[in-house]
């Protein structure tokens, strides 16, 4: 009888220890998560400090900014005489941007990845001028170039339009 009681106690003890061990494993997981969150918090604090120094501007809705980019491109086309196609995930001159935007490194700001495709060049085309136009486009809008690639008779400028 005594042995049975000790055996049952041992069993209960093992059960409790096992339960305690699983809790300990949970504690370890939570601690790792806390460390990650704290690192993230530290990172965000640093960003907030640096952003406090920047001048503030009113954010622009993405659709409005996209329209601005398109208008700017049309203006450049008129001045330079070079046709520029804007592709949104392969769809040329798409006006419907819903469903194409994605999150950016700026919280609450969305991005629209577009390609500007120029495929009608002549031998006399001033490539430097085209690149300068692209720079102007970038400068006058919230469009940021990530890559410009010219091969054969084809120039593709990849970038992202930012907006609220």
């Amino acid at each position, binding site marked *: 009888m*005594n042995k049975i*009681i*000790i055996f049952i*106690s041992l069993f*209960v*003890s*093992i*059960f*409790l*220890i096992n*339960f*305690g*061990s699983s*809790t*300990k494993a*949970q*504690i370890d997981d*939570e*601690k790792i*998560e*806390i460390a990650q*969150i704290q690192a993230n*918090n530290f990172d*965000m*604090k640093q*960003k*907030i400090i640096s*952003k*406090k120094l*920047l*001048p*503030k*501007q*009113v*954010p*622009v809705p993405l659709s409005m900014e996209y329209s601005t980019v398109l208008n700017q491109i049309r203006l450049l086309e008129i001045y330079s005489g070079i046709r520029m196609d804007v592709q949104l995930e392969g769809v040329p001159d798409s006006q419907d941007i819903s469903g194409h935007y994605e999150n*950016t490194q*700026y*919280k*609450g*700001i969305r991005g629209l990845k577009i390609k500007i495709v120029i495929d009608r060049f002549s031998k006399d085309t001033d*490539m*430097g001028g*085209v*690149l*300068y*136009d*692209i*720079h102007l486009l970038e*400068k006058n809008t*919230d469009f*940021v*170039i990530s*890559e*410009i*690639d*010219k*091969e054969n008779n084809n120039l593709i400028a990849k970038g992202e339009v*930012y907006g*609220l």
Partner: protein
Amino acid sequence: MNYLLFNNNIYLSDGSEVKRIEKGLQLKSELEGIDEASICVVDVDVLLAAAVEYPQEKKDCILVRKFKELYQHEPYIIQDERIDNNLFQVIGIKEQKVREVYSLIPQDKVRSFIPYGIALRNTLINKNVNLKKTVVFVDDLETERLLTVFDGLRFSRTRVIANNEENILTEIKRSQIDFFKKTEEFLSKKSVDFVIIVNNQALAAEISKNTEKLQVEYLDVAYPAIEGLKVTDSLIKYRLPEENLKKRREIELKKRVITSIISLCLVTSGLIFLLFNKLEFEAVKNRYTLAKQSNERLNEQLKIFDKETYREDLKVRKSLNYGISYFSILEIIPSSYTVNSFRFYKTNKWNVEMTLFADGDRILGPIPRIRVLKNAKITDIFVNNQPGKYLRVTL
């Protein structure tokens, strides 16, 4: 300490003098003053029995059964001692006798309670009597003579012979034969030789005149059993059944308490481990909640700042004028080259890759490593049977 020998009369010793007390009315008052006593009782029954040594419960069970088979007429209190491998000497005292002794001396005053044979054997061993031989001891108590046969650790039931001045040799032989018959199955020797030891010199001299030339020795100890009681270290102590029951209950209770403590310790250790972890878990959870709240607050703050400053940040990122950079490369490259392809791409800084080929049949001259091309990587290439240059520059 007092020493008592219980027989038909009671012999009481205070350690130096021995007094004989007859059973009667004054007995109780004589024994009242005793603080502590060691007791031996003559009236015991002895049985040699074989049994397993372990487990103890099984051994006890076998020995009790064998003893009861022989002495079933009256209740006995039984003790045993190990004689040899799986061989035990079972010594029983009638329960009535034990009760009688304890009615005279309270149990708490009794330090040891052993059979007369063991007390006597202690003295014989102390006096270096060779018990490898069979020994018949004659204990002369004046009014009666006690005959006990020893062989090694074994001893016989003590026979009490009234002292009526008759020749005791016949009784000695009878005792020896009786002992030999009872124990012969456990004896290795087949010889019937024995030594007679007497504690009365005159009686020893008288017995030694026997015609069979039996060896007779004299032992100068008046009360050998009482002497043996002084040196007893026997584990044997006769107790009343209810006392045994009480002891067993106490042992059982002790076991239960120990079991309860062990069980409690086991469960408590598990519980403490669990509670400690649960408490730590709660504390960690609180820390997690606080960190998460702080994270959400900072996230909201950053979101507001990001909305207000992203445009300014974008401006900082748009520092490169691709047109001017392109021109600054082209103005260094000799006019014999035409640009076949180029690529602007960003790692940490902006990089430009270009492939250049000869314009018509013109000879490819070296590209000077000056200004923006100072650290440029320039390699020769050969594509579609056309030689050219590959150029990579970090701006």
